[in-house]
């Protein structure tokens, strides 16, 4: 028999109170400000905005502070806030050819119009701890150089001209919005890209790595990776024209993959595509590899049973808020469920014992 119980309110209150105290840490150490987080932990803020699926640096910084630096908890907070916002509208599609690039590289062509610009990158560092950062008042200043303010064309558009690259056509279709409609499988590439863009970086990284190791082998070159500022255009219904309403940082990655060709199409290169909020290049690159692996059906390739080819597997598990919600709920009291399991196993054992005696 099991009697339902209530209780724990006081324990919960005190636990939260202690958590708040610990979050503040040693009171003799200065409190961390949101400005410090947005200015100095920028990539953490970017990750929270991308997976929280809401571009707002101040809120992401607040979430990071509140969650004591637990980024998945921070993403959870931002997602929860996001659901309370009234959705005004959908933006015009962002044209990344107009991006003001901080960084723009290609691993396929050395000489590209606009040049290879490394930007503020960790690449080519030696990954040695920099003890100079222990000294607190460093304000490094980097060099500048004369520039021409020209539009930076996409590298792969040059392959398009020779028809060597599969063209991505705009059929003017309205995409499904997975925040409004539940996904059903098989789904569209638009739904997959939305899910991947807000998906968990670690999950995408692991899956993308699996494609490189031979699960859905699909050798990818980085055709182009660019990070920079784009403006977002919105139609203002009161006025009947478009204005720019926001300026955000995006990371875009296009991979080049081989395609054997089909009965109706000659062999050509195909694309994997990643586009993510913030400076998030590991994730944008992983997203591009997974996007390409998931396109096997459309491109008439073989299904090798690899996880990265299974859209239901990938899309259903890439959301870390869904995942952590379900995973962590098993910590909560399951006393009644377990009581029934316990009674069942006792009964089975008692039956088994009687049977043994009879023998």
């Amino acid at each position, binding site marked *: 028999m099991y009697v339902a119980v209530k209780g724990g309110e006081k324990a919960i209150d005190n636990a939260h109170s202690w958590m708040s105290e610990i979050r503040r840490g040693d009171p003799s150490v200065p409190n961390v400000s949101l400005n410090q987080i947005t200015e100095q932990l920028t990539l953490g803020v970017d990750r929270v905005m991308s997976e929280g699926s809401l571009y707002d640096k*101040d809120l992401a910084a607040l979430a990071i502070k509140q969650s004591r630096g637990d980024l998945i908890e921070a993403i959870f907070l931002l997602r929860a806030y996001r659901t309370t916002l009234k959705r005004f509208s959908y933006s015009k599609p962002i044209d990344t050819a107009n991006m003001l690039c901080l960084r723009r590289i290609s691993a396929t062509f050395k000489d590209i119009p606009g040049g290879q610009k490394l930007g503020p990158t960790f690449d080519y560092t030696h990954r040695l701890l920099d003890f100079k950062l222990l000294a607190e008042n460093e304000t490094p200043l980097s060099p500048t150089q004369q520039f021409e303010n020209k539009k930076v064309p996409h590298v792969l558009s040059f392959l398009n001209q020779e028809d060597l690259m599969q063209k991505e056509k705009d059929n003017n279709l309205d995409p499904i919005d997975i925040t409004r409609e539940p996904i059903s499988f098989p789904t569209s590439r*638009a739904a997959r890209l939305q899910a991947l863009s807000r998906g968990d970086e670690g999950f995408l990284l692991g899956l993308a790595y699996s494609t490189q190791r031979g699960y859905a082998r699909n050798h990818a070159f980085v055709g182009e990776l660019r990070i920079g500022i784009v403006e*977002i255009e919105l139609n203002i219904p009161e006025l009947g024209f478009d204005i720019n309403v*926001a300026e955000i940082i995006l990371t875009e990655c*296009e991979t080049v993959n081989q395609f054997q060709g089909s009965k109706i199409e000659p062999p050509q290169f195909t694309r994997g595509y990643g586009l993510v909020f913030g400076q998030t290049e590991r994730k944008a690159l992983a997203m591009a590899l997974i996007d390409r692996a998931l396109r096997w059906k459309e491109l008439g390739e073989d299904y090798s049973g690899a996880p990265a080819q299974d859209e239901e597997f990938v899309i259903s598990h890439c959301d870390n808020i869904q995942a952590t919600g379900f995973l962590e709920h098993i910590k909560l009291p399951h006393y009644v469920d377990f009581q029934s399991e316990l009674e069942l196993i006792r009964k089975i054992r008692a039956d088994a014992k009687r049977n043994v005696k009879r023998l």
Partner: protein
Amino acid sequence: MIEKRKSWMSLLAISDQNDLLNLWDQKKIKISYEWLRQPEIGSIMAQGKMGVTGDKFNIGEVTITRCSVKLDCGTIGHSYVQGRSKRKAEISAVCDALLQTKMSKEVNENIIIPLEKIKKDKRDKILSKAEATKVDFFTLVRGESD
């Protein structure tokens, strides 16, 4: 006129709220107006294109605050600005209205032109830093040349 209005509304929308508030407070423009729509915080869904040129897909949302005001002379100003600052939205809508009146020169000189300069300086700084990280390749000639 529409092109100009699009341009100032866009500039106000993406300006840093502290920059806008500072410029506005310095100028101390006295103006009375009524709300047509109180500041309202919401979001828009940003869309991208698959493979740069293909069909649209949703990336994620961006916080936006909007409001509308009416000056005593009847001129209406709207704002849709990035972020969650109601004050930024309010000042932006008032500026949008004033820029359509005979006060436009004053607002243009004291708010819009300084904001344009801030924006240009910020962009030039990024472009000049990025340019300094541009790779110069040089080819090593190997073997014997004729």
